[in-house]
C-alpha cells in the first residue's frame, strides 16, 4: 500500500514539474519567439586573425544571447598554416560554415568553381540592396566577380568584408623633428622623399623600413610606383603581354629601388626582413618611414603606445598621375555553400557587419570598419588612413592578373637590385624573357 502511494506521489510530482515548466516556458514566449527554430544550431567560423580573437569571442557571446545560435570562432595561425588548413579542408570537403580565404583572386575563383563558396548576391540585393549599400564599395569589389571575368566564375558577390584596409607609408614625427624636418609636412613627391631621407641619414636615422623579406610587400610598392609612373592601362597591357617589361617606364620603376639602395635610404637587412620585424623596427623608432598597412595602427599601439607618427601616401614620381595604393577589403568571410546552416551563416554575417558590431570591432581591434555608417569611434591615425581609400586599388579587382612565376621573379629581382646583384635593365630583360616563355606555355 505504502509502495503504491509512493509511486503515485512520484508520478504526481513529476507531472506537476512538467506542467510547471511548460507554463514557465510559455511565459517566456514573446522574447524567445524565434528560438525554437534556431536554438541548438551552431555556426563554426575559421579565421587566422589573432588580434581579433577576444573581440570575436565577445561578439559570439552576444549573438548567442540574442538568437540562441552558438557561434564558434576557431583560430588557426599563422596565416601560412591557416591557408594550408583551408586548402586541405576544401580537398576533404570539410570546410566550416564560414571561413576566411587567403590568397589571390585565382585561388578564390578555384574555391567558387569547386562549389565551396556560396553566392551572396541574392542576400546582398534583398530589401533594395540594404546590406550591400551598408558596406564600402571597394571592400565589396574584392569579393566580387563581374560578368566575363577571366576565371569563368558566375558573376556575383561571394564574400563579406569585415574590415577595410589600405597600405600606405607612415613616418615618425619625433625623428622628423630631430632631423630638422617639419613633422606636419611629410614628403609629397620622390625628390622630397630623397631629400628628407638624406637629412634623416645625416641625423643618424634609417630611412624606409618594410617587410620586404615577404615578397608581396615589394610587389605592392613596386605596383604603386608603376601605376603612378605609367598609369593603370599600361600596367594591365604589360600583364596582357602587349607591353614588354623592357619598356623604359618599367626600368624606371626598378631604378627607384636601386636609387633607394644606392643612397642608403633603406633600413639595413630589409630584403630578408619579415613585416613583424619591420614593425618592431619602426615602433622602436629606428627608422623614420615604414611602408605598411592600416592594420599597423593596432600593432604599433601594442608595441609602443606613445609612438607619434603620421600617415602619408607613397611619394609620387609622376606628378601628373595619382598615387594608387593597394587596399580594399582587409579580411573577408565566405559562406560554405555546402553548409547545413547556410542561411543562418548569412544572417550571422549580416549581423556582424551591422553598424553596432562594426563599431565595436573597429574600436577594440583598431581596424577600419567595412560598414560605411560607423563613425566617431575611429582613432585619429586610423581616420588618416581612411582618407587614402579614394586611391585604393588591388590585384583582386584588376581585369587581368600577372602569372605567378613572373610575380615571383619580379619581386625577387627587386631584392636582387637592392643587394646590388642585378641592374634595373638586367631585371627588365629577364622578366621580358620569362613573360614570353610563360605566355607561350599558357597558349
Amino acid at each position: 500500500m505504502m509502495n503504491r502511494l509512493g509511486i503515485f506521489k512520484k508520478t504526481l510530482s513529476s507531472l506537476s514539474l512538467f506542467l510547471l515548466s511548460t507554463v514557465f516556458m510559455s511565459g517566456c514566449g514573446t522574447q524567445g519567439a524565434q528560438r525554437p527554430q534556431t536554438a541548438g544550431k551552431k555556426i563554426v567560423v575559421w579565421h587566422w586573425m589573432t588580434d581579433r580573437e577576444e573581440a570575436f569571442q565577445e561578439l559570439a557571446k552576444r549573438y548567442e544571447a540574442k538568437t540562441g545560435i552558438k557561434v564558434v570562432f576557431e583560430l588557426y595561425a599563422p596565416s601560412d598554416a591557416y591557408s594550408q588548413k583551408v586548402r586541405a579542408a576544401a580537398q576533404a570537403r570539410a570546410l566550416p560554415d564560414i571561413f576566411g580565404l587567403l590568397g589571390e583572386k585565382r585561388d578564390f575563383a578555384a574555391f567558387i568553381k569547386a562549389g565551396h563558396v556560396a553566392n551572396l548576391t541574392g542576400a546582398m540585393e534583398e530589401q533594395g540592396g540594404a546590406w550591400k549599400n551598408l558596406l564600402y564599395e571597394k571592400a565589396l569589389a574584392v569579393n566580387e566577380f563581374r560578368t566575363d571575368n577571366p576565371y569563368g566564375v558566375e558573376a556575383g558577390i561571394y564574400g563579406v568584408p569585415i574590415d577595410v584596409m589600405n597600405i600606405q607609408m607612415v613616418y615618425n614625427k619625433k625623428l622628423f623633428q630631430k632631423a630638422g624636418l617639419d613633422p606636419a609636412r611629410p614628403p609629397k613627391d620622390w625628390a622630397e622623399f630623397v631629400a628628407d631621407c638624406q637629412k634623416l641619414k645625416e641625423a643618424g636615422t634609417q630611412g624606409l623600413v618594410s617587410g620586404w623579406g615577404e615578397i608581396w610587400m615589394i610587389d605592392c610598392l613596386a605596383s604603386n610606383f608603376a601605376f603612378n609612373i605609367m598609369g593603370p592601362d599600361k600596367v594591365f597591357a604589360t600583364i596582357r603581354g602587349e607591353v614588354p617589361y623592357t619598356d623604359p617606364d618599367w626600368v624606371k620603376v626598378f631604378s627607384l629601388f636601386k636609387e633607394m639602395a644606392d643612397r642608403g635610404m633603406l633600413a639595413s637587412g630589409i630584403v630578408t626582413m619579415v613585416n613583424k620585424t619591420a614593425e618592431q623596427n619602426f615602433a622602436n623608432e629606428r627608422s623614420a618611414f615604414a611602408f605598411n598597412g592600416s592594420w599597423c595602427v593596432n600593432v604599433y599601439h601594442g608595441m609602443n603606445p606613445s609612438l607619434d607618427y603620421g600617415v602619408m601616401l607613397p611619394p609620387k614620381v609622376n606628378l601628373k598621375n595619382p598615387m594608387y595604393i593597394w587596399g580594399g577589403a582587409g579580411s573577408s568571410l565566405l559562406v560554405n555553400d555546402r553548409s547545413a546552416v547556410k542561411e543562418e551563416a548569412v544572417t550571422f554575417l549580416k549581423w556582424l557587419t551591422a553598424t553596432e558590431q562594426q563599431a565595436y570591432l573597429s574600436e577594440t581591434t583598431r581596424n577600419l570598419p567595412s560598414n560605411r555608417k560607423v563613425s566617431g569611434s575611429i582613432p585619429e591615425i586610423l581616420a588618416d588612413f581612411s582618407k587614402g581609400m579614394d586611391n585604393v586599388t588591388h590585384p583582386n579587382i584588376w581585369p587581368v592578373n600577372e602569372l605567378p612565376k613572373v610575380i615571383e621573379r619580379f619581386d625577387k629581382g627587386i631584392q636582387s637590385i637592392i643587394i646590388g646583384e642585378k641592374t634595373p635593365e638586367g631585371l627588365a630583360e629577364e622578366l621580358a624573357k620569362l613573360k614570353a616563355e610563360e605566355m607561350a606555355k599558357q597558349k
Partner: protein
Amino acid sequence: MIAEKIKQFYNLMHNATPKQKVIGTVLFLAALETFFLLFHDSAVFWVLAYGSVTLALLFLVLANLIKKSLSAFFFVVPALLIFSIFYIYPFFKVLQLSHHAWDGISPKMTFVGLSNFFEIMKDRIWWVSMGNAGYITLIALTFQNALALALALACDRQIRAKNFYRVIFFIPPVLSEVVVGLIWRWIYDGDYGFLNYTLGLLGLQHLAHNWLSDPNTALTCVAIIHSWKGFGWGFMILLAGLQTIPKELYEAAKVDGANVWQSFKNVTIPLMIPVFVLVMILTILGSMQAFVLILSMTGGGPGYHTEVPVTRILASMQGSSMFGYACAQGLTFGVILMMVSFAQMGISRKLKQA
C-alpha cells in the same frame, strides 16, 4: 641484349621459390602499371598499381607468418594496413598528381604526362635550390660531423661531469627550429646584432655587416646554424658507437707501441665505419631537407640565395597553386635523395671491404 635480359629474368624466376615468384610477379605488374601511368591517365591503372604493391606486401607477411601461426598474421595486419594507407597510398597519390596540372582546389585535374618533370629539368631556380641544399649538406658533413666526432671523443674519455656535457650538447637539437632561427636572426642583425657588437669589441668593426642580407654570407650563416642545431644528433650516435669499441683493443694497441693517432686511425676509424655511414646518411637526408630554419631566418632570400628544394616545393604549392608541379618536384627530390643514399651505402661497403 634485351633477349638476354629476359632470359636472365626467366632463369631467376625459374629458380625462385614459389613465394619469391608470387611477390616478383606482383611487383613486376605494379612496375608495369606504374610505367603505363606515366603516359596514360587511367583510374583503373592507379588502383591496380596501388593494389599490387599492397598485395605483394600482404603476401610477403602472410607467407612468412602463416607457417608459424595464423593469429600472428592478424597481429601484423593492422600495421600493414597503416603502412599501406599512410605510406603506399600517399606515394601513389603523389605519383598520380605529379602527372597532372592541378591548382589544389578544383575538382578537375588535367593529365599532362611527364611534362611537369621536363619542366623541372629546365627550372633553373630549382637546380639553384638543389645547389644551395648541397652546400648546406657539405658544411654539415664536414663542420657539423667533425664537431660531433671531436666532442664524442672527448666525452668518451674519463672526464669530470661528462654526463653534464652530454646534456648540454644535446640541447640545440631539442630546441624549436623557429625559436633557433629567430634568436640567430637577432644575433646576425646588421644594426643591433650580437655578432657585430662582439666584432666591434674585438676591434673588428670592418667585418661587421648584415650577415643574412648579404648574398655572400647568407647561405653560409644558415648552414652554420643548421650544423650547430644538428650536431647533437651526430654526437649522441657517435658516442654510442665509440662506447661499443672494446677497451682491450686500445690497450693491445698501446702495448704494441701505437700512439693516440695510430690507435684512432687503426682501431677507432675501422670499427666506427658503420656508425659514420649512418651519421652521414642521416646528415645528408636532414640537411637536404632543411626548411624551417631557413623560413624563419631568411625566407629563402635575398633573391634566391637561400632557397632550398623544400621552399621551392612550398612556393609551387602555395605561392603559385601548382600542386601537380609541386608533387613532381617532391618526387624528383625523393629520387635524388635515394640515389645519394644508395651511393653513400655503396661507398661505405667498399670502404669496409678495404
